[in-house]
């Protein structure tokens, strides 16, 4: 009676800053999760989609260090000012990701079910960080993520506390050694925290074009010298991030504080991370991820 989790292997995060000239952080939430996602949830063959918007709390890491005994080190200054939210999307392959904009008939009309003529992504430059006033392009920090499912997520019918634990690997560790120890030691131990509703480890692809090649046109900002420089600078801040789901922040604090192997967890963080810190995000589930074989019909 097992469930095959071998699908949904093309995962992309896209860090996005709002158009600050037009929108506050809360207005950005409404625009992104409201109108924008009403279009993007219909991307062709999308298999899962959440929009994660940070809570503007730059003191969280310090609080967790104090109250939970969680280790925090070298958090980049003003990290939350670099982005407002990051969508996470799942597709079955690079091919399906790059074809996501091919529209399907989803609108009932007098002529039957047809392609929606009002479907649009034209709100992008008003919603996101526009490259310039005369450009329809916006800065987007798309990155392909390699996922390590440490504890499958179970979502309750209540807004969860979702913590994103960003980290940067110790330079003394090879990429292979870091990945092996992250997967086989750290995440295995972290998954034993009490009251944990899900844990997903993520390493970003070293190739920062893995998610944008074939997705954006060749003249897009992200392939310009400036775009590449800005993207490299952002991605140099972190190598990956773990997604932790709890019912409340207090549940995480208690679980971490009371963890039977607290010292071992801290020791591993000492050994693995040059930097690690926490961000709380409000997760909006736009399309519930479906990691099993896709049905042979339209399904979201």
């Amino acid at each position, binding site marked *: 009676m097992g469930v095959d989790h071998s699908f949904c292997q093309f995962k992309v995060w896209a860090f996005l800053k709002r158009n600050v000239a037009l929108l506050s952080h809360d207005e950005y939430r*409404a625009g992104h*999760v409201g109108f924008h*996602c009403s279009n993007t949830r*219909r991307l062709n063959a999308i298999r899962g989609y959440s929009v994660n918007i940070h809570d503007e709390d730059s003191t969280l890491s310090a609080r967790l260090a104090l109250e939970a005994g969680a280790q925090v080190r070298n958090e980049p200054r003003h990290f939350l000012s670099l982005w407002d939210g990051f969508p996470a999307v799942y597709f079955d392959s690079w091919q399906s990701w790059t074809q996501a904009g091919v529209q399907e008939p*989803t609108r*009932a009309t007098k002529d039957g079910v047809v392609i929606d003529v009002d479907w649009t992504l034209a*709100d992008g430059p008003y919603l996101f960080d526009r490259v310039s006033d005369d450009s329809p392009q916006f800065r987007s920090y798309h990155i392909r993520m390699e996922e390590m499912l440490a504890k499958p997520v179970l979502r*309750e019918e209540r807004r969860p506390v979702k913590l994103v634990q960003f980290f940067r690997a110790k330079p003394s560790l090879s990429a292979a050694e870091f990945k092996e120890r992250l997967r086989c030691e750290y995440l295995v131990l972290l998954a034993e925290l009490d009251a944990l509703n899900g844990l997903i480890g993520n390493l970003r692809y070293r190739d920062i074009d893995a998610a944008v090649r074939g997705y954006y046109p060749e003249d897009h900002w992200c392939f310009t010298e400036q775009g590449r420089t800005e993207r490299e600078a952002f991605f140099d801040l972190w190598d990956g991030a773990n997604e932790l789901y709890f019912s409340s922040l207090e549940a995480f604090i208690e679980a971490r504080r009371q963890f039977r192997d607290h010292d071992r967890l801290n020791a591993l963080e000492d050994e693995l991370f040059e930097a690690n810190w926490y961000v709380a995000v409000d997760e*909006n*589930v736009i399309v519930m991820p479906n990691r099993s074989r896709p049905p042979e019909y339209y399904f979201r």
Partner: protein
Amino acid sequence: MLKVASLTCRARGMSRDDYRAAHIGYHSSCVRRLKGLRGYLVNIRAESSTQDWIADTIAGPMGVERDDVATDWDGLSQLFFDSIADYRAARALVQDRPGPAGLERDERLLDLGGDEAFLYSTPPLSFAVDEHVVLPVRRPEHKVFKLVQLGRKKEGVSDHEFRSAWCTQYADQVRAAPGLLGYTVNFPQLTDVKTDFYPPGSSVFSPQATERELDFHRRWDGYAELWFTTPEHFVDWRSTMHDALRPIEAEWFDHWCYVEVDETVVVLPDRSAAAPFYHR
């Protein structure tokens, strides 16, 4: 929390797959932007071998034939709001569309996309429900096996007795089922969910729509939602428990039926206090 159920029938001549795409695609994309919406599920009736197994093996004399159910509805939508007042105010336009002047109101939402006349063959049959959460659902990241079990109480049984029996004696046999992810029982209530939500002149106010509602409520007194990890979990459980469930069903139900549905979580219901910002 207010929960409003709507049964819908696809437009005449529309294939089941076209209906899925149009309901889950464009239509849900409009509805999910209702002001103050706290949850939105769309359940499309499925056709599967499990449904055949139910009809052939366990339906028996009290189980309604599948074809009778099939004529009734193709989709069951469920909207969640904090209150009836929020529900009645939900059609007010919110500023959620980015434009050159910042957030704008989207006039296209005034008629919720304007596709209902082409999507449905009859007006949606909507009613509020008293919801009893027996086992809070926790959804995994894979397609789950979901059943809707409709039930009609036996003649001579009061509403109170029927509801109590379903939520305790019957539910007690269900809640421990292996692979069960959630179990909720819903009973229609009398709250008016048409006025102030649907515009005056809407076909939901027609005599035909009213007659259809009365017919539905004459045949059904409640429905349960059961989420299982896989169909095999349900089949194994029901096979094992069949002899224990039968006497309870015979005592309280006149008839019942299981309908397998494909659930789309358009907006994950949020039963905690509303966030002080836009959340879906």
